């Protein structure tokens, strides 16, 4: 038997290793130093963007490996859920199906993004334990992976929204373009939430179940299944709804899609909550970043 000429694999010389810059890891506790390292962490994640993308893609692929429809199970199950709930609840709430179903579809798809992102973010570091302990990598990469993965899921679910819009002949108005800046706010918030809850989830193992129950309560308190218009004549309840951070965030996406004009007040509340979240995350991440490998 003639063996093929083996590739000269024993002289690995053509693969450079990464990061040729000197790296100083100092334990000093002063804020400027810690902030510089935290910022460097974020910059690295941006530089490793192709890795974040591929990791997220593999996550989705893995979840549906060997299944017939693959990730389109996401689309199908959302479609079935929206269809079945929509017709029942429009009767229950005495709403017109043509108005209620688009509302419900957008709400559920968006809420699905919020609730899975928060649930997965609280384990974003603990579930990557093997990676974190084997190679120095930016920690924010794991948060980016959670966000990217959920954006991919969201993209699959958008098909349902498009389907419902076609079914009910809804043509989005020009206000719908404000969805683009709203997306930016959403993804920035999702990234911040992933970092924040990831850090807390790594340190305190009680966090993931707590997040689970908080999100379940939030689902009922936030106008997702029910339209806030139903509460219009009950003063105090309206204020509670308006101050609900989930409501303002949902509304900057949902409102314009349903043809409502841009609401500056809702945007202001949403931006306010986002700013608080991002600043808080910045502080927590700067402080806790070096400790993450010790906690997981």
């Amino acid at each position, binding site marked *: 038997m003639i063996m093929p000429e*083996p*590739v000269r*694999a*024993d*002289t*690995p*010389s*053509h*693969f*450079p*290793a*990464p*990061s*040729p810059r*000197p*790296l*100083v*890891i*100092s*334990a*000093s506790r002063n804020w400027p130093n810690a902030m510089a390292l935290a910022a460097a962490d974020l910059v690295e994640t941006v*530089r*490793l963007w*192709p*890795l974040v993308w*591929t*990791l997220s893609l*593999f996550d989705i692929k*893995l979840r549906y490996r060997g299944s017939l429809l693959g990730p389109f199970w996401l689309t199908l199950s959302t479609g079935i859920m929206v269809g079945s709930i929509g017709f029942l609840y429009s009767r229950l709430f005495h709403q017109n199906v043509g108005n209620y179903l688009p509302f419900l579809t957008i709400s559920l798809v968006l809420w699905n993004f919020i609730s899975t992102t928060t649930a997965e973010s609280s384990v974003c570091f603990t579930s990557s334990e*093997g*990676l*974190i*302990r*084997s*190679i*120095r*990598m930016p920690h924010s990469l794991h948060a980016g992976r959670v966000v990217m993965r959920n954006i991919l899921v969201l993209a699959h679910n958008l098909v349902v929204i498009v389907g419902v819009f076609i079914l009910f002949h809804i043509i989005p108005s020009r206000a719908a373009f404000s969805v683009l800046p709203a997306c930016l706010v959403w993804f920035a918030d999702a990234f911040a939430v992933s970092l924040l809850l990831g850090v807390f989830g790594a340190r*305190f*193992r*009680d*966090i993931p179940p*707590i997040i689970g129950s908080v999100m379940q309560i939030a689902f009922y308190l936030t106008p997702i299944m029910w339209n806030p218009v139903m509460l219009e004549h009950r003063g105090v309840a309206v204020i509670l709804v308006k101050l609900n951070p989930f409501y303002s965030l949902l509304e900057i996406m949902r409102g314009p899609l349903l043809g409502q004009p841009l609401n500056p007040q809702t945007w202001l509340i949403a931006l306010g909550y986002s700013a608080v979240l991002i600043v808080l995350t910045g502080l927590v991440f700067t402080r806790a970043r*070096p400790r993450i*490998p*010790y*906690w997981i």
Partner: protein
Amino acid sequence: MAGLFVEDVSVSFPLYHGESRSLKKTVFAAASGRLGQDTKHRLTVEALRNVSFSLRSGDKVGFIGSNGAGKTTLLRTLAGIYEPVTGSITIDGEVTALLDASQGLNMDLTGNENIRLRALFNGYSEAQIKQLLADVAAFAELDQFLDLPVRTYSSGMIIRLGFALATAIKPQILLMDEWIMAGDASFMDKAKHRLETVVQGAEILVLSSHNTEIILRWCNRVIWMDTGRIRADGTPEDVLSAYLPPDQFAHAMAGAAG
């Protein structure tokens, strides 16, 4: 010129047993003003204590010491995985750490997908990724297994993949744990040559091993770790003669000379 400078580094692991890990305890402690005390009394394991040394191009260092002396923690700290509690580390050069065989491998993904992820981590172009895939495939000899999830591999196959992947990248600074010496005999013969190329190509080698023969062959400096501190730091002959019982030392020297 590569360099690795360790200044007064301490690393301690907090022990989070049921009590201090719980959010409830922390919140109640904070509410009753006991948080400070709690923090002070928290149990920690001091894995490294005031370790200082500097390595420059040409230094090939072996870490020796009993189990639990802090060798692996020190390697992880040098790789930048654990950031020190006090002191600082300066890493000047490209680092590869071969810490354990399955390091960073995702068991659910296929071999090829894992190789791609590693390549992306190093920021390779698509052409380089193809080259790396071919290089690892040729060396690991896993053939069609590379298209199967790593979960289905035997432990020996995982070592092959991990080894081929880790040694495909030629670093300036190479950090190695002794797992690399494990593997079946036929593979080790092949692995030895490849490993030696990588070791010789590295400007700085840091090797943690119990195998004195390998340390004598590859290292020109030995650091003896004991309970998280440096007990001795010097030429292999000096440190090993203090570390080993006399008969074993004579045996090791004879083995290295022969």
